[in-house]
């Protein structure tokens, strides 16, 4: 059976500078995969490339169909949600409006409204902040909102860019536990980019390691954390 996401020989970059070189990935349905690497290795660029926010060369196939020639909004409409770095919430809109926008492309309005309530159950803090402008909320609340907004799409694949960035350890733990819940309960496949390699490897079943835009290692997440050499040279713990 084909993988949910198949990437072959992907090149991507900004303007004339190429950041990602000949990258190949497989993401299986229902799994959590993590993409690790040092600062500037090209993790964020990889996620941006997968939903065509930047120029790419090479093949990207989602559910067996080529998506590398599509526009970002059409890839999103096929069920790929992206929680970008910096969260990308709409700062001057309220929490509720942000969530409504998350379900913007859905035709099943009633189910979308029910999903909105479900998001408030996942993140009770957001319910309290319903009418508050997103830009005035704390970093953790904005991250929760960004995830909730992405889930409103009912995605098949969720791309997460450093959800732990700049957040207190307690909130990071909460966000990781919610990722586990949505993976198990809602059958959402997750591709997670993280600086916090230890936590990411504990959550994920598969892992990829990239260095200066090239793939250096791929395999089971457990094998990654057990490999002393990998740990010391790439993961720094």
């Amino acid at each position, binding site marked *: 059976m084909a993988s949910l996401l198949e990437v072959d020989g992907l090149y991507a970059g900004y303007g004339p500078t190429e950041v990602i070189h000949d990258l190949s990935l497989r993401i299986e349905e229902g799994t959590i995969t993590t993409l690790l690497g040092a600062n500037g290795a090209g993790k964020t660029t990889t996620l941006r490339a997968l939903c065509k*926010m930047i120029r790419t060369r090479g093949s990207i196939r989602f559910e067996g169909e080529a998506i590398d020639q599509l526009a970002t*909004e059409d890839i999103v409409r096929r069920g790929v949600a992206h929680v970008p770095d910096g969260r990308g*919430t709409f700062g001057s*809109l309220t929490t509720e409006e942000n969530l409504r*926008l998350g379900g913007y*492309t859905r035709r099943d309005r009633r189910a979308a409204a029910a999903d909105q309530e479900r998001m408030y159950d996942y993140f009770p803090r957001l319910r309290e902040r319903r009418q508050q402008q997103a830009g005035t909320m704390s970093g953790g609340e904005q991250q929760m909102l960004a995830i909730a907004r992405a889930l409103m*799409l009912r995605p098949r694949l969720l791309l997460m860019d450093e959800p732990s960035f700049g957040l207190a350890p307690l909130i990071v733990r909460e966000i990781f536990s919610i990722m586990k819940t949505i993976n198990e309960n809602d059958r959402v496949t997750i591709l997670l980019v993280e600086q916090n390699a230890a936590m990411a490897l504990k959550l994920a079943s598969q892992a990829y390691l990239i260095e200066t835009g090239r793939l250096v290692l791929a395999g089971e997440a457990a094998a990654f954390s057990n490999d002393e050499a990998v740990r010391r040279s790439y993961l720094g713990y």
Partner: protein
Amino acid sequence: METFIHQVVAGIATGGVYASLALALVMIYQSTHHINFAQGEIAMFATYLAWTLINAGVPYWVAFFGTILLAFALGVLIQRIIIRPVEKAPVLNVVVVFIGLLVILNSLAGWIFTYTIKSFPSPFPKEPPFGLSFISSHELGSIGVTLVLLVMLYSFFRFTPLGLAMRAAAQNPDSSRLVGIRVGWMLALGWGLAAVLGSIAGMMIAPIVFLEPNMMSGVLLYAFAAALVGGIDSPGGAVLGGFLVGILENLLGAYVIGTELKLSVALVLIVTVLTIRPAGLFGKVIVTRV
């Protein structure tokens, strides 16, 4: 006292026109961060279309709504064909395109409809409403049309999914794409709506200033002053600014400086706001780190 009240009421009536055009400027500014200098000429051109329809024997209100549709299409077409290619271009390029558009529309109107001044009908009766002496029917009607327009526009942006998507697209195009909004079309829609606002402003002011290719140049200046007074990124501010400028212009013109110097009120306002409070009354003060 009677004349004073009349000056204020007339100021509110023209103020509504300035408010509509100022709102059009703000809408384009929010999504492109540029002032559309051609906004007035789009309105003027649309008013000529209305005049053509009315002259062909079409009843006024049919022509009115027909013009709204045509103006919408004109706005969308201008965005798709002329503005889209320069979307990512530097500021100066865009400004030159806007000015080019202004000149082209102005000359086109002169070429098609000639530069002779034409009278444009008002849909409202000649005699004052309810026997009142301080307000004409056109002024009252024009205020009514503006208010209906503003309420409809507010409801559209506040309560409909499409309005919400348009606000999102103007604010954060990248994130909008990530929730599946077709940002390009939202921008085109914004241009269409701005053109509709302008066309209504044009049709309401034309009976007062008469129809000719340069009729909107003064109005655009007032609208620009209104948008700046209210804050160029604040729709509510632009509307309030429009009414303020309208009243101020009329009172100063009647009692202080005379009608000949009225237009300089707009320029003085523009310069004052830009030097003392560039963000306007309700605008956001943006601090950028360098």
